[in-house]
């Protein structure tokens, strides 16, 4: 893999980030509603002087392009500004929440890939069998059902009918003073429903994708050769076939990362998961510009990084691409 390729990818990534920052800034300003009025409303009403002083304090009385210039200059120095609403640095607010979001997204990603691929492989073995039919139906439903609906159904099922999972939050406040081990189990216990909810839609996609990809690979000559030399079924499926079928899965996994993050917004809202998605949602309602832009900045950053990593890992996984 050559360095100029990596540098080129990084440069494009940077350019993309700049575009994202400018677009975010302008789009948010297009939404009606004055943040000063929201802040004053939260304070219980205000006088004109107070509104003016709020606008002055947050630089809202400057021309929009000037505000944009200042913002880009600040972001270049990794300063995302202060939340209008909480009067705290946006980086602090995001710092509190990025961990839970990453935990949720990565868990959902792993869960969907592992389970999805497994189902796909099983289905591909007998393309006309009942398992294959099940995977196809499950995939269609999983992909079609909105994620918040799945979440709400799971909440109803596991809160009212069989109450075995907590339905909101990331940890139980009453275990605040417990040891690390108990706390970790507690987080895991809270994680299951939201992670599964988020995973379902992608799990379905991976299942279908790996089924199709495996079917194609299983028909190829080298699989027949592997079978002919007496390799076990497991070895044929998971060693010879899956490795070759994995490339499209990997690509999709990278591309899905962005969708997962936007899906996390909904799941976090439904399950009261203390992550960035909920922060973004609440901040939009509050017209808390710096926080919205900060969250969008971080989310885009994660997507850009994920895409670059996918590109690079693609080359690692496929020896044929390495020299290019």
């Amino acid at each position: 893999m050559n360095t100029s390729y990596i540098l080129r990818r990084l440069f494009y990534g940077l350019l993309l980030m700049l575009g994202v920052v400018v677009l975010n800034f302008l789009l948010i300003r297009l939404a009606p509603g004055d943040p000063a009025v929201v802040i004053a409303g939260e304070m219980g009403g205000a006088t004109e002087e107070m509104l003016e002083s709020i606008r002055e304090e947050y630089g809202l009385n400057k021309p929009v392009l000037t505000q944009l210039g200042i913002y880009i200059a600040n972001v270049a120095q990794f300063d995302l500004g202060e939340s209008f609403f909480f009067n705290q640095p946006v980086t602090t607010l995001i710092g509190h929440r990025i961990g839970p979001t990453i935990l949720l997204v990565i868990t959902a990603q792993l869960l969907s890939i592992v389970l999805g691929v497994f189902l796909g492989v099983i289905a591909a073995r007998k393309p006309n069998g009942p398992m294959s039919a099940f995977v196809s139906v499950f995939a269609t439903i999983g992909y079609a059902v909105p994620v918040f609906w799945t979440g709400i159904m799971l909440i109803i099922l596991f809160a009212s009918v069989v109450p075995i999972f907590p339905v909101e939050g990331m940890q139980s406040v009453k275990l605040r003073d417990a040891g690390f081990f108990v706390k970790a189990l507690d987080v895991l216990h809270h994680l299951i429903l939201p992670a599964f909810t988020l995973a379902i839609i992608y799990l379905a996609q991976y299942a279908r994708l790996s089924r199709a990809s495996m079917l194609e690979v299983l028909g190829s000559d080298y699989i027949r050769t592997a079978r002919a030399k007496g390799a076990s079924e497991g070895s044929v499926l998971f060693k010879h076939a899956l490795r070759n079928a994995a490339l499209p899965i990997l690509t999709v996994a990278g591309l899905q990362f962005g969708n997962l993050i936007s899906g996390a917004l909904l799941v976090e809202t439904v399950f009261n998961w203390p992550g960035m998605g909920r922060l973004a949602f609440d901040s939009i309602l509050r017209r808390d510009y710096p926080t919205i832009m900060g969250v969008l900045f971080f989310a885009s950053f994660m997507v850009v990084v994920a895409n670059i990593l996918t590109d690079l890992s693609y080359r690692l996984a496929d020896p044929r691409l390495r020299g290019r």
Partner: protein
Amino acid sequence: MKHMTRLLGAVSLAVTSLAAPVFADGGTLVIASTQVPRHLNGAVQSGIATAVPSTQIFASPLRYDENWEPQPYLAESWEVSEDGLSVTLNLVQNATFHDGKPVTSEDVAFSIMTTKENHPFKSMFAPVDTIETPDAHTAVIKLSQPHPALLLALSPALAPVLPKHVFGDGQDAKSHPANSAPVGSGPFMLEEFTPGEAVVMKKNPNFFIDGRPKLDEIIIRIIKDPSALLIAMENGEADMYPFMAGSQEIKRLEKAEHLGVTTDGYAAVGPINWLAFNTASEKLSDVRVRQAIAYAVDREFITKALHRGVSAPQRGPIIESSPFFDESIPSYDVDLDKAKALMAEAGFADGMDLTIDYIPGPKEQQQSLAEYMKSQLKKIGINVTVRAAPDFPTWAGRVGGHDFELSMDVVFNWGDPVIGVHRTYLSSNIRQGVIWSNTQQYANEKVDEILNAAAVEADPAKRKALYAEFQQMVAADLPIYWINALPYHTAYDKKLQNVPTGIWGTMHPMDQVSWSE
């Protein structure tokens, strides 16, 4: 093998604690809330979200009992001078801030002046000229005019005593960093504040009232999704849920065996749900049209049917549970014939078109009522279009900008009429762009006069008479049609003792709350 046993023990312990929520040590109170505080300093911010934690962290000169009577708090005694122009506070000697520094009259003076300058409720301390501090434990508030609302304004929810050595460093109080990491002298100390998630407060071991607080810890958990919040209450993850207003929520938690539900604790808040008229609009400038609308709307139907009996009717501008409420106020009981006659008299026999806005929030109080108005007002020939706002800023922009005809709104009384009632009716408070000012643009010189007189009237009986006159006048002019008191309820675990049900409810120090086991 020994390790294995230990590990198994830990796992089984963890699993049991996960399966059945257990009380840590009986000393923690978990309050569930849908309200997100910006920060925890009630001196520069009004609202429930800040007031609940702020009143635990900061003490104040006075506190109030359930009969609207002032009680000693940081001030062990107080005197109002004959002419009503000075109020002397004698502070307790043993109060300290959470950082160990003593609470002095300097801090009290600093706090009231900071609140005067920064709090949105300007009328609370507007008449305060200076505060003299003859010694470390005496503060003398000098007023430019008598100000009977002052004592109520010295409540924990409105007058937190800030440490001057922290907040007096010259930074803007509204965005002071200590607002999110406050040091007070109240019964609980801030342990952790995660914006939008939780406020954790630990017992103040050096609290100046002996033997209090009883609890070790109060945790406020913000759960924005009401259904998740209800489940948390039902399964014991949360112990108290104040400011619950949905009839379904109330009915559901009433069914939970381990929970009690009360309407007490909201007298001072005085949350009134009302229909506001833009009296400057051509169609609504005629009082007969406003009265016709009032006669067409069935308040009883709203409270009994739409709100399923959980809300109480509200006939006037002052909350009915306040001592200032005037029982004889006309109630505009539903009378469609009279309404139609009034419309005809006003020259609208053929009806008219009107738009109704509503403040975004729980559907039941606002949106449903706006939709009800649409069907009900059709009966007297008024064609109502319901105009939804996607969020608060949009709605506030319309109503604050006087770009509305009818709007559903919720406004709080905040204890004394001077604080929360005058702002809606004084013609001097017609301010374009300012939400919860006199957005109805109602102007009546006589009403202005009465309100200004009531603000300085020291004699409680005379003051009450002035407010009675005021209520009769605005009920006749009808810049607003008052509908119901917001049905705030508190759900609480029945094992809790001394649940806060005074006039300020949970916006009051919870130093006497305890677990019975």
